[in-house]
């Protein structure tokens, strides 16, 4: 008998009953603190575990360690100055935060976004989705003891960050999306580099699959662990890849298309049982679908303006300032006071890499928002931790937490 199958035999003999073998009737529960500074909590998340032997009986997340009051800060700033602040909420999917906010403000202003800007937004958001899934894949595999995967995932991530740097000057928190469009048109040569990247990425993701899909240890840790059924997830408000892993194909890009997503052909990957393995497969397949969307958007990228021509909202082009008094006045008004937004309130939901990211903006008619609230998917999805890990081993808890993929910047805001 090989060592591995012997391990499996012993594993099967372990019982999950309330009385672990050999511990007697008087088994006591033990409360263990995990985090906030723990390498496998993906940020500053603290978990209070109630353990019975090695089995988790209850789990309470304690959050707020990186609460920075971004929603309060946003109320003190003109609308266009809010964008860099909200980008720092969920710090691995910054384009989505920026778009959720810009989309809400555009809805309030009833501003028309040019088609080219919408396509550029889609390309950047899908590149960002790939980055986000790569970070998830890399860090999750570290939690499972596979550091090699981390180097590969971050190698590809680096390529996307180079693309971001090329189009906007920044690797992260790019402030590329503006109300009404994007800040700049893409530089020459960018399109070719994106095409080259999607080609590489498809190839690399096959290699990831070869590395992980038939890896005995990986499969043992992933299959049949952390299962939560669809109805419980819906009750908990969970969306995104976690919900799709149970077979529910809910994706806002398809269900309620925004930002020209209706123009692209792509599929929604779904799982069957909703275990950790399905969560891995769904996100892995989403990387490929994102490559698909990027290629179509690049091929169909329309000509035209990259930001709205409405001078009350968007800055005039630089060359106009030298010749037009009108442009100078608009420029001055926009950078000092900012634009005013008609009173009202909207809720603008989009599909972020973790699920529904909704931005609620209330305007009181001034140039600063009266309330900004982000319905961050990490904050809501974190509630599924207890449901997914109760009565499992503490080792499975680490794997499941990695597969839930909470980003603490988004949880605490």
């Amino acid at each position, binding site marked *: 008998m090989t060592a591995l199958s012997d391990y499996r035999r012993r594993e099967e003999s372990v019982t999950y009953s309330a009385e672990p073998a050999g511990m007697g009737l008087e088994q006591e529960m033990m409360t263990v603190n995990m985090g906030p500074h723990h390498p496998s909590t993906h940020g500053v998340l603290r978990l209070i575990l109630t353990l019975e032997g090695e089995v988790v009986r209850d789990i309470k997340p304690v*959050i*707020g360690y990186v*609460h920075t*009051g971004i*929603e*309060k*800060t946003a*109320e*003190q700033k003109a609308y266009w100055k809010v964008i860099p602040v909200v980008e720092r909420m969920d710090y691995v999917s910054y384009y989505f935060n920026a778009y959720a906010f810009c989309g809400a403000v555009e*809805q*309030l202003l*009833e501003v028309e976004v040019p088609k080219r800007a919408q396509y550029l937004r889609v390309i950047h958001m899908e590149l960002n989705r790939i980055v986000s899934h790569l970070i998830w894949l890399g860090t999750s595999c570290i939690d499972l003891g596979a550091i090699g995967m981390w180097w590969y995932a971050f190698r590809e991530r680096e390529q996307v960050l180079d693309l971001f740097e090329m189009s906007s000057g920044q690797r992260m928190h790019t402030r590329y999306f503006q109300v009404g469009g994007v800040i700049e048109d893409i530089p020459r040569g960018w399109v070719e580099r994106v095409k080259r990247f999607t080609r590489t990425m498809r190839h690399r993701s096959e290699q990831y699959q070869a590395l992980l899909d038939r890896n005995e240890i990986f499969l043992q840790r992933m299959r049949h662990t952390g299962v939560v059924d669809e109805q*419980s997830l*819906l*009750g*908990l*408000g*969970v969306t995104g890849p976690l919900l799709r892993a149970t077979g529910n194909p*809910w994706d806002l890009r398809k*269900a*309620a298309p925004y930002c020209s997503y209706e123009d692209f052909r792509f599929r929604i990957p779904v799982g069957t049982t909703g275990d950790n393995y399905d969560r891995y497969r769904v996100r892995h397949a989403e990387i490929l679908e994102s490559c698909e969307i990027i290629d179509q958007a690049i091929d169909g990228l329309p000509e035209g303006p990259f930001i709205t021509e409405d001078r009350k909202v968007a800055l005039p082009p630089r060359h106009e300032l030298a010749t037009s008094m009108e442009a100078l006045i608009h420029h001055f008004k926009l950078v000092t006071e900012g634009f005013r937004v008609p009173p*009202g*309130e*909207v*809720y603008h*939901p989009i599909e972020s890499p973790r699920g*529904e990211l*909704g931005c*609620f903006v*209330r305007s009181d008619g001034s140039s600063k928002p*009266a*309330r900004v*609230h982000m*319905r961050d998917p990490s*904050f*809501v999805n*974190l*509630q599924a931790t207890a449901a997914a890990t109760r009565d499992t081993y503490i080792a499975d808890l680490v794997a499941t937490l990695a597969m839930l993929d909470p980003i603490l910047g988004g949880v*605490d*805001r």
Partner: protein
Amino acid sequence: MPDATGLELIAQELRDTLPGAVLDTLHFRGEATITVERRQAHDVLAQLKRRGYSFLASLHGVDYYPEEPRLSVHYQLLDMDAVDRICVKVRMGLEEAQIASVFDLWPGANHPEREVYDMFGIVFDDHPDLRRILMPEDYEGYPQRRDFPVGGEPVIFTYNEDKIPGWTE
């Protein structure tokens, strides 16, 4: 989103079964909002849930200061089959900042309700674990209220730590 007529039909249905519950309807920028009386909010939400709006997408607080009644809780409901959203808004004054928890309808309301309690001081009755969630447990005040000042937190250094109350006992 239901159109303006669809919203009125839903409001009329609610008025028939729960007299006095619906205070106002609003169709703005393609979004439907129903303002509901505070004590009947739970019944309204339960009825909308049965009607198909079975997913609680978001729950957040808003402070309308200096308007009265100033506080509000917004429930963003979603019908995943009809791909339809509706917002239920409950306004309340500072002295009656109390509302029934919807934890029994949606277990996912747990964290959002704690956040609203933390940030606005609205108490959710029958919530299983109503504690502060983002701010420290011993924090005083409700920071997202509009009259709460910005930048009032002293920064603790060695030279001033004994002057900051509650830090060194």
